């Protein structure tokens, strides 16, 4: 997979699938499958932040957990520093666990209420047999300071902390093993906006200090734009758009991205009233029986016959901007003619069904033509 600035990818996904079987009856026969992640490919460079966005149920969290191997992929390959890791056993995975850590969404549920902060943050060190007890304590105290807590918090319990402070504990735990990759699953969505901005700034500082690579999962495109270098948009298990962050916001190609952008609240009453909001009807359909063709077609305002029948290929529009849509937005004739199917296209999609027309050029956020 091409990485725009040439540096080697830290983690690479090739046609990764994760299906959950639904079993019924005495024999627990498999009667259906939840297509949580369905043939997703992308690569993340070292030091980069990739934002992963989509509504609940789009498979973004499942994908995050599959990447750090908390879940077994059903199919496809995951490469960490060029090494295949999707079929490694628990023992072989152990050294790799030091390289990949996760920060969870719910700061209340992700910390064991019966353990002290020192134990929570120090356990990863103990499991990996790093240093002796004294060294570990010193290291934990240093970590607490790094994330903006005080070393005196070492002996406290999680319930003594506010939501934002707990999330800092979760981040300290993830940092303990000095990982290369951190998968942050909605790390700020349970927090007040004021605490949210503290947390986003902290994550940024830590990235600079420890040369971290982030996969940042969230449903709020405002937050994701702020932290990400590139953004991947998922819908019902599929990767539907992948683009540099600023470009995605200036020039969304997939109508779903356009709708997501227009749903982000804008703290400016005049602008908020003036802009036209594309309100998506209904909820995400069931991933057990996903719609045929383009999975977004039942909710898409540009959908035509071809969208119902043919799964669109992930098309490369240049400038590392990929999108899977039969009626792309904000694309001029020349770009459309030069567009090619990306090697990241899902295998089920029709690579020859490249888009023929552009659906429009309206900028959903500003309401004027894109610059």
């Amino acid at each position, binding site marked *: 997979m091409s990485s725009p600035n040439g540096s080697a990818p830290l983690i690479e996904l090739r046609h990764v699938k994760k299906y959950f079987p639904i079993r019924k009856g005495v024999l627990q026969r498999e009667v259906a499958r939840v297509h949580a992640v369905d043939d997703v490919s992308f690569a993340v460079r070292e030091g980069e932040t990739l934002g992963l966005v989509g509504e609940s149920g789009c498979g973004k969290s499942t994908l995050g957990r599959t990447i750090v191997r908390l879940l077994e992929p059903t199919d496809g390959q995951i490469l960490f520093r060029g090494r295949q890791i999707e079929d490694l056993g628990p023992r072989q995975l152990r050294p790799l666990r030091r390289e990949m850590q996760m920060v969870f969404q719910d700061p209340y549920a992700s910390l064991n209420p019966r353990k002290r902060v020192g134990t929570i943050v120090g356990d990863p060190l103990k499991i990996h047999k790093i240093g002796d007890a004294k060294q570990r304590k010193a290291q934990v105290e240093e970590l607490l300071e790094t994330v903006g807590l005080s070393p005196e918090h070492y002996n406290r319990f999680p319930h003594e902390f506010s939501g934002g402070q707990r999330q800092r504990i979760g981040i300290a735990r993830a940092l303990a093993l000095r990982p290369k990759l951190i998968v942050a699953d909605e790390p700020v969505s349970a927090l007040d906006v004021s605490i949210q901005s503290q947390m986003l700034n902290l994550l940024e500082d830590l990235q600079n200090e420890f040369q971290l690579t982030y996969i940042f999962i969230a449903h709020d495109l405002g937050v994701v734009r702020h932290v990400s270098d590139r953004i991947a948009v998922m819908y019902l298990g599929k990767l539907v758009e992948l683009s540099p962050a600023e470009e995605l916001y200036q020039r969304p190609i997939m109508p779903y991205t356009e709708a997501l952008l227009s749903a982000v609240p804008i703290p400016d009453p005049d602008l908020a009233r003036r802009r036209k909001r594309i309100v*998506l009807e209904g909820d995400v359909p069931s991933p057990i029986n996903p719609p045929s063709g383009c999975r977004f077609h039942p909710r898409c305002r540009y959908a035509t016959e071809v969208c119902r029948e043919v799964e669109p290929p992930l098309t490369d529009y240049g400038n590392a901007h990929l999108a899977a849509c039969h009626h792309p937005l904000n694309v001029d004739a020349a770009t459309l003619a030069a567009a090619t199917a990306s090697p990241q296209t899902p295998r089920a999609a029709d690579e020859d069904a490249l888009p023929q027309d552009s659906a429009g050029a309206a900028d959903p956020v500003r309401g004027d033509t894109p610059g």
Partner: protein
Amino acid sequence: MAEPLLEVEDLSVHFATEDGLVRAVDGVSFDLKRGEVLGIVGESGSGKSVTAMTIMGLTRGVNARFGGSVRYAGKDLLQISDTEMQDYRGNEIGMIFQDPMTSLNPVYRVGEQISEAIRAHEKVDKRGARRRSVELLKQVGIPNPESRVDDFPHQFSGGMRQRAMIAMALSCNPAILIADEPTTALDVTIQAQIIELIGRLKDDFDSAVIMITHDLGVVADIADDIMVMYAGRVVERGATRDVFYDPQMPYTWGLLGSIPRLDRPRPERLYSIKGTPPSLINAPRGCKFRPRCPHAFEKCQEEPRLEQRVETPGHLDRCWLDVDFKREHRGAMIAGESTEAA
């Protein structure tokens, strides 16, 4: 302008705890007219939910101490008995809670729960109540309401559950609808749907809405007035446009600066308000925001009154700083650090 529907005057709510007296709400006053949307904004622990729950009579208890008054239709809701309160709660004032996952009872069908609310307040038979439930579910945009009315809450998605909660809150045509963080647990797309729905239903039912949130962005296009709360007090209040375009309280600037905005270029760093909200047992002396305020000076040791300091009538704040100084200096906090400066 019409008579106010609800008049809250100098409301204070204190709770006696083992650790001391928690001053959750202190001297809050506002009024609400028919058809109006009031946004109450603040962090966790600012007293916004306690204010709303007190209006609903949900904070009554042996440890609670009330002051001031909440006048609705000539009655002070703080003075009436619990039994009398039941005629107002749900019937005249409806409430939508934050968490749609836990506010519906999982072992009863959605329709039964809405019917129960209707039958608690009106004399209708079961069949009539069911018919009303179907109609309400249709009004809040649930597809196939005739069959979905018999679903259990777990068969509904988060957005649908919140719609069902709204249907239940609207079941008795309340004059006032209080929405306490109605969209915080939801996706942005569903959030947009719910906010639009509340705005539309407000017109259909001709009610007034109190919308509580920590995110100023959520109330920007729906609220007529904004009230910013901090440590149990109102620190700024005014028409929505005034609060957004001419914010007077450094706390409001911080809230605005904390939001990653899609309508502006990406700042190098977001503004973040230092520290955490103060304890409500031992609140700081003087201005409650002083310990976190970058512009605090000696005078802030003394607490400013909530009063009009700008030209615009009805725009009140609690800040000693000179208005011109504020207009000159607030930009840095609201916009965050720009890319050039970094």
